[in-house]
């Protein structure tokens, strides 16, 4: 038993470990800065960025390594690394967006970047976890960090209230999650996915207790990815949080929770797929329909993007409901595509904000094409991509996910989702209409202090990848599915 210590294999936690090290470096630099008054403050985001890129390097290196596990509690496989890359993309772009933004909101930038990195580490552990305890700890790690980040602007009531609401509802959801985990443990005697599956296979599990546990787990996960009816925190928190945090949140939480969600269902409960597949399908329909319909009525850009993100969670869930390897690969493609196009959209929101406020009204887009044609062009790319129009990444994202759904026998779900994306096209298109076909008003302008080089970099990177992934989808799939797809590890 004690020999287990020597069997430690760090592969599964290496990327997260790299992030924690990066966080420590940032923290130390920050302290040095305070002690010696050296002007290292401006360096912090770039140090953090280097940390993220280095971690991405580790992840890509691990892609070519064999699957390895950490005492059965965590795993390093292609999907875990793919998820890491999604999270890292979100973190890198969020850090770029923060360079100018955060110092104006809160002067403790050292803590801010440390938290971003630690939160990313937590998210990355979600995708690697193969044990409910690990999932729970990782979930809490990134959630706690995000509660804080949402309230980063201490002097802004909205930010405060976003943090408060997010925390109270989040803690409530966590309690449900862990209660669900307890029931799953009670039904099967283990929290490890493979052992759970084994007990189920042997027929030793208590089905009713397991059902209660899984239902509560779905509620907990559903809260994190804002599935209807657990979505009510999303618009307020999105609106109240500092915009780079919102952008990061929208991508990171989705990616992390979906990865763990999928791994749990596919690895621990493959035998029950028909039941939970149907449940997830119904949740998907609810979520995307609600997100799209309510988004139609929003005027605040961040609220609109919040409801749009709810709708996208619904589409993603379509990929998971099928529980096929194709479904999860499609969902991962969706996540990376969503990371780029959504980051781009939030970068535009930042451009439109005024000093000291953290949101922009849709009115400010009116006639933007006449004032700032380049920004309007990029925003149109993001909007068309979010709507799922080819040749942008959003199209293939939807196409792959729905392909998996049809393949898995969920054609009706794919059809509902497609009709939903037609509804969604309406509000994305409205933004384009406003930008191009309306006359600019006094509100329409981009203030000089918002338009910084890092924001422009984010916009550029996001746009390039939104187009590139749409035209050449294998750029991503070729990277993360280079080896033979290891189905055994997941199912």
């Amino acid at each position, binding site marked *: 038993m*004690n020999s287990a210590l020597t069997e430690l294999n760090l592969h599964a936690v290496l990327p997260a470990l790299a992030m924690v090290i990066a966080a420590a470096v940032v923290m130390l630099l920050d302290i040095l800065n305070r002690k010696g008054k050296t002007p290292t403050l401006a360096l912090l985001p770039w140090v953090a960025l280097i940390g993220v890129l280095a971690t991405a390097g580790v992840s890509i290196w691990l892609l070519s390594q064999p699957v390895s596990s950490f005492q059965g509690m*965590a795993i390093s496989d292609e999907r875990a690394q793919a998820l890491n890359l999604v999270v890292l993309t979100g973190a890198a772009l969020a850090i770029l967006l923060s360079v100018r933004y955060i110092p104006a909101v809160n*002067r*403790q930038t050292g803590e801010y970047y440390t*938290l971003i990195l630690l939160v990313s580490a937590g998210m990355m552990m979600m995708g690697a976890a193969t044990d409910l305890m690990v999932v729970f700890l990782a979930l809490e790690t990134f959630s706690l960090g995000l509660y804080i980040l949402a309230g980063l602007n201490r*002097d802004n009531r909205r930010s405060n209230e976003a943090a408060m609401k997010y925390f109270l509802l989040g803690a409530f959801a966590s309690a449900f999650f862990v209660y669900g985990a307890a029931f799953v443990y009670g039904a099967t005697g283990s929290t490890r996915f493979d052992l759970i599956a084994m007990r189920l296979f042997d027929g030793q599990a208590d089905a009713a207790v397991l059902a*209660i546990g899984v239902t509560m787990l779905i509620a907990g996960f559903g809260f994190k990815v804002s599935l209807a009816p657990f979505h009510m925190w999303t618009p307020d928190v999105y609106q109240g949080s500092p915009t780079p945090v919102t952008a990061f949140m929208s991508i990171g939480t989705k990616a992390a929770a979906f990865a763990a969600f999928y791994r749990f269902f596919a690895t621990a409960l493959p035998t029950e797929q028909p039941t939970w597949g149907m449940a997830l399908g119904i949740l998907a329909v609810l979520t995307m329909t609600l997100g799209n319909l309510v988004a139609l009525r929003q005027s605040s850009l961040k609220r609109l993007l919040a409801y749009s993100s709810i709708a996208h969670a619904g589409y993603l869930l379509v990929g998971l409901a099928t529980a096929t390897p194709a479904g999860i690969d499609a969902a991962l493609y969706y996540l990376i595509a969503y990371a780029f196009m959504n980051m781009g959209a939030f970068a535009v929101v930042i451009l439109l904000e005024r000093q*000291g406020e953290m949101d922009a009204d849709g009115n400010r887009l009116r006639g933007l094409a006449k004032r700032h044609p380049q920004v309007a062009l990029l925003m149109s790319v993001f909007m068309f991509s979010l709507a799922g129009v080819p040749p942008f990444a959003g199209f293939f994202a939807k196409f792959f996910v729905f392909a998996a759904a049809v393949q898995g026998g969920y054609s009706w779900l794919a059809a509902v989702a497609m009709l939903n994306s037609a509804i969604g096209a309406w509000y994305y298109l409205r933004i384009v209409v406003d930008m191009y076909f309306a006359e600019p008003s006094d509100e329409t302008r981009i203030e000089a202090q918002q338009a910084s080089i890092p924001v422009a970099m984010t916009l550029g990177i996001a746009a390039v990848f939104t187009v590139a992934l749409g035209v050449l989808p294998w750029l991503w799939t070729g990277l993360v599915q280079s080896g033979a797809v290891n189905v055994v590890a997941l199912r």
Partner: protein
Amino acid sequence: MDFAMIFFILVGALSVATAVGVVTSKVAVHSALFLLVHFATLAILYVTLNAQFLAAAQIIVYAGGIVILILFVIMLIGSAPMETRAGYRSWVPYAGLALGVLMLAGMAITILQMPLTPLDPNANQGGVPIVLGVEIYAQNILLVQLAAVLLLVALIGALLLARRPKNDESPISNLQSK
């Protein structure tokens, strides 16, 4: 009905009563004190389930740490009973209650269908701390590491929200705090 059962019922009843007390108290301090007793009753139940070490941890962490923290905060911000603001949707508590009853009914039905197997008094080797220690640090070292990161996040987070740099006088914050 043997002694164990009577003991369980007494402690359990106290535990539920204090839980109700936490929820229904008008004043936060009362809630906190009820919570303290509640945590203690649970610690007693842990002992009956061969989890002596966790019972001790329960007292130290919850009663000694969390409740004290909460009491500090109450002292900091005062604990006057709060008036319900006008316009508050008064149906919310009832809806919550109804939802809770439904949930409890569902769980109870499920739990009661489980077989009434008597527990093995020697299960988990009688709850000796050394066994749990080996289990945690040998088999579940990853969890300890993760918990460390979690606590680091909480630490930095609390620091970020609570501490203000001395020279924090950005024009915006002044503008908005007024």
